Structure formats: structure tokens, C-alpha cells
């Protein structure tokens, strides 16, 4: 029996709505951004919901103030705006302040990568992994389907510290239907493979699964790991897994070579002395105003299935 796919935000907001019934410490703050499930939250809990309007700087400061008063806060907006419009508020009132005060603030950013396909670069988001990774005390969470998104909720509501949830805006196929990832590991191994392994996050897990299918026809069996917690993962376990490969391919829907998933795994493997060669697949840095489907846009910037396949073939022959 297959599970009907949902938008990540709807699955996650459903968890919040359920929890708000028994936990009066949850407060939801939106920067004028909605969803059908959000309508339930604001109707059922009007005193623990507020819309600050199109004002992301205030979204963060209000959330910090509420958290100082003991509320577990969920702040909600479009991904590029909730990360970049208010970056210094995030740095000062969340990352820095949480060094000395227990704060539970969860930023929910909807619209990872190219998920607002026709809205262009203002609404697309290729920099957030880099920026949030730069902040100490933050957890960076990037699920690949609505099931894994919902599974992240428990850790968000029960642990202090600021967190950023990077959600896709579209309804993505279900990956975790017959099995559940171990959330505390921060990643899940989907395919063991040989010689080389892909580490992907978010939407790019779906691309990676298709790449795996295609490349297996050529007799190449590539490993595949979905990383959904880019800051607090089981490092020893990831170390021992990656150590069995000679090639590591990172695939992200963010700028290549600018401090995102590729930098994180480059730094991880070098600090841990893992003897592995790296291939980094990411968006060629630059802003484009071209229109097309998401997969067409991906091919243009170097992260489409065909582009990845040709990069992997070359890499496979090199390592």
C-alpha cells in the first residue's frame, strides 16, 4: 500500500497542529505565508498564532522574544526571505543569544532550490545551506519527502536551540513509505553500492534515485545516502561508511563550491582523514532568468539527470 504524497509543509504543520492541542507552549509565527493546514492552526489556536506581515526581520525578533518567555516557536516564511532578509536578526537574536539562553525557535523555510520554478531567482533559494551552516548553535534540516519532514518534528519540539528546516515547495514522491530513517543518525543509506557513493539532500534525492536507476543499466552500482541533518549527524557512522568508498559525489540544489553540502563533506572527509576523491554536483554559480520546467532548469545549471550522469561516468573512470 503506498502513502499519498503531501507537501512537506503540510505534513509538518499537521504535526504542529496536533501537538498544539496538548502543548500550550507552542507558538506559531508567520510572515504572511500560509497553507491549508495553517488555516487550522490559526482558527483553532488564535492566541498562539500571529502573522507579523511581510516583515521577516520582525518575524525573527518576535520569535526570539517569545522563546525567551519559554515558548517553543515555529516561524514560517518563504525560504530565501526567512534566511536572507533577516540574516543578522538570525545571527544575533537566535544563534548568538542561544549561546547563553535556552531558546527553541524553528525556522520553516518553504521553497528550497528551484522549487518555485517559474518565480525566478528572487523566490528560488541556492544560498541558504551555506548561510545557515555558517552559524554555530544552529541545526540545518533538509528532508527529502513529507514523511522524513514530519519525522523531524519530534526533535524540533523537544530540543532547545535554533533550527532551520529547508522544505521543498512542491509535492514530492514518497521515499520513506515502507521503512523509516533513523532520525538521530541524520542520514539514511538507501543503497550500498560499490566504489563510489552519492550523498544528496532534499529534492536532489529524487534526482539521485533516477541517476542510480540509469547508471545501473550500465553495470555501475553507486551507493546513495540521503542526508537530512547537515549539522548534527552521527559522524562516526558516516565516517566508517564513507571510508569504504574511493569516490564521493555530493549533489545539492544550491550553488556549487560556495559552502553548502559539498564544502561540508569536503571538510568532513579531510578532517577525518578519509581517503576519498570528491565530485561536487551543484548549481553553477550565477543567476538566471530563463523559464522552463524544473528538470530543464536543472540541466541548464549542471544538476539535471543527464548532466549528472555524464559527470559520474567521467568520475567513475578516473577513480
Amino acid at each position, binding site marked *: 500500500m503506498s502513502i499519498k504524497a503531501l507537501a512537506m509543509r503540510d505534513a509538518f504543520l499537521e504535526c504542529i497542529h496536533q501537538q498544539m492541542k496538548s502543548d500550550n507552549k507552542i*507558538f506559531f509565527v508567520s510572515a504572511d505565508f500560509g497553507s491549508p493546514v495553517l488555516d487550522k492552526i490559526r482558527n483553532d489556536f488564535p*492566541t*498562539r498564532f*500571529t502573522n*507579523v*506581515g511581510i*516583515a521577516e*526581520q*520582525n518575524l*525573527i*525578533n*518576535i*520569535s*526570539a*522574544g*517569545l*522563546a*525567551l*518567555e*519559554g*515558548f517553543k516557536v515555529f516561524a514560517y516564511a518563504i525560504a530565501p526571505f526567512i534566511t536572507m532578509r533577516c540574516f*543578522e*536578526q538570525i545571527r*544575533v*537574536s537566535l544563534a*548568538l*543569544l542561544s549561546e*547563553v*539562553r535556552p531558546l527553541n525557535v524553528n525556522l520553516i523555510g518553504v521553497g528550497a532550490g528551484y522549487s518555485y520554478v517559474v518565480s525566478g531567482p528572487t523566490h528560488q533559494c541556492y544560498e541558504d545551506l551555506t548561510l545557515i551552516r555558517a552559524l554555530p548553535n544552529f541545526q540545518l534540516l533538509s528532508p527529502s519527502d513529507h514523511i522524513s519532514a514530519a519525522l523531524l518534528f519530534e526533535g524540533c519540539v523537544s530540543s532547545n536551540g535554533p533550527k532551520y528546516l529547508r522544505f521543498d515547495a512542491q509535492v514530492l514522491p514518497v521515499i520513506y513509505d515502507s521503512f523509516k530513517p533513523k532520525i538521530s543518525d541524520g542520514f539514511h543509506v538507501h543503497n550500498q553500492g560499490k566504489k563510489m557513493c552519492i550523498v544528496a539532500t532534499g529534492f536532489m534525492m529524487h534526482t539521485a534515485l533516477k541517476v542510480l536507476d540509469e547508471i545501473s543499466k550500465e553495470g555501475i552500482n553507486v551507493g546513495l545516502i540521503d542526508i537530512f541533518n547537515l549539522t548534527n549527524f552521527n559522524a562516526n557512522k558516516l565516517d566508517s561508511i564513507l571510508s569504504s568508498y574511493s569516490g564521493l559525489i555530493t549533489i545539492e540544489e544550491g550553488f556549487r563550491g560556495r559552502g553548502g553540502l559539498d564544502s561540508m563533506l569536503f571538510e568532513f572527509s579531510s578532517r577525518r582523514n578519509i581517503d576519498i576523491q570528491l565530485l561536487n554536483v551543484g548549481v553553477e554559480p550565477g543567476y538566471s532568468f530563463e523559464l522552463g520546467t524544473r528538470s530543464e532548469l536543472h540541466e541548464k545549471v549542471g544538476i539535471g539527470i543527464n548532466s549528472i550522469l555524464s559527470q559520474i561516468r567521467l568520475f567513475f573512470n578516473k577513480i
Partner: protein
Amino acid sequence: MNNNLYNQNNALQTKVLWVWKETLAIHLRAPETRLASSLSVIEIFVALYYGEILNFNSSKPLDETRDRCIISKGHGSICMYPILADLGFFPLSELLQVCKKGSFLGGIPDPVIPGYESVNGSLGHGLGVASGIALGLKTKKKNQDVFVVTGDGELHEGANWEAIMFASHHKLDNLNLIVDNNGISMLDHTDNIVSHSDLVARLSSFGWDCEEVDGHDVITLRDVLAKQKITKNGKPKALIASTLKGRGVPGLENAPLSHIINPKPELIESLLKNLDDRFLEYK
């Protein structure tokens, strides 16, 4: 005037002078501290902390029953160090350690200092955070009040105006803003940079209850703050305190570049020596 009030008024004025002296002394020992913007705000803090405006618990600074005081103009609040020490938040001897290795009293105050609530000094954040706290207290049905002290220069930061709109919309009458309106930011008079003169009219038009007072008249400050605190009329309160940056220091007072001028140590020493004369003048 009854005797008690007379005595308290006298005590407030005496305390203002003591804090002024201690602030100069700190700057003499630690020239990295910002002196001028700490001298305009002394009476405001003395009224809040000694004028029975704020409820606080110096032995338990984060006690639930305290009023929250957010000091948004962080670096311009070195005068808070002697006040907090005097009130028992930490030992007076710590005042000798400002900016020294191992001390928690830095050039810009951080929330590791007992009595400081939030990250300050990066300007324009305090009012938004204070609004969140005020909303949180109302949601919890708690009666504590929130005070936030900003400079006028930092009101150039747009995030303040997001919070100003938010606070009046949500009828946060437990929120009290005090603007140390010394009229000068780092490079010039604010009126010469981007003018936001007549803050009373501006804030009133955003739905705030505003008053303007002489920010060096500690008695009036106390009286107006006391009145504003107990007025629960569905409006946030703002007190625009007209002040002089670098108050009392020749060459510094109201000088456009006072933020970055460090007076000569000999000048500070002579001011401290002749304090008795100044005391008479203040009386």
C-alpha cells in the same frame, strides 16, 4: 512634598552624580568603552532602577517576576555597570576589570552580564525582541512589564518600525519604549544625516502613547515612567527623553563626533577631582 518623597528625590539626584562619576572612572580605566552615549542615558537608567519603576531581583536576575529591561543601545550603556554592581547584580570590585581578560564586563555589554537580557549593541534589534517578550507575557497572562531603551540614531534601522507597527496593532500596553534622544549618531547630528525629528508625532501616528521630557530631569523621568507603567489603555508607551550626548564633559557634550572622541585622561581626572563643585551645581 512629604519627607519620603523629598528624600527619594534627593537620593535619585545623588545617584545620578555617582553613576556619572563611576562611568567616567570606568572610561578612564578602559578607554575602549563608549563614553559620550553612556553619559546621555544616566538619568533614564537611574529613574528605572532606583525610582521604583522596575521590579528586579539582583540575586536572581532572570526571576520570572521581574520586569524585563532590554537595553538596545548596548554600547551606550556603560553607565549600567556601576548601577548593576551597586544594586548587587555583581560585586563592585568587578568595575575595576572592565575590558580586562576574564571579566564579563566588555566594551559592548553582552548577555553574560547579570541583568542584561539579550544581545545588544548591534542596533535596532531590542524593540522587536521586546515586542515578542511583551506578546509572550500577555499570552501567558502575566503582569510584568517590558522596558526597552534605544538611542535615537538606531531608529534609522527599519526593523524598529516593523516592531512599532506590530506593538500597537497587538495593543501591547505592557511595552514601554524609552528613546535616549541625544540627537547624534556616530558621524553627525541625526537631523543632518536622515532626520527623524518630532518622534512624538511619528510614534503617535503609529498608535503609540507618547510623552516627551527633559531626559536629564531624573524626577520627571521617574514620575512619567511611573504613570506610563500603570496606564493600561491598549497602547504601547514611548517616552522621548531629550538628552545631551557626552553630558557634562567639555568638548564632548553635544559634539557631532562625540561618539568617537576620547577625552584626554587629564580632563577626566580633573572632572572627577572637582566633583564636589558639580554636585553643588546639580543641587
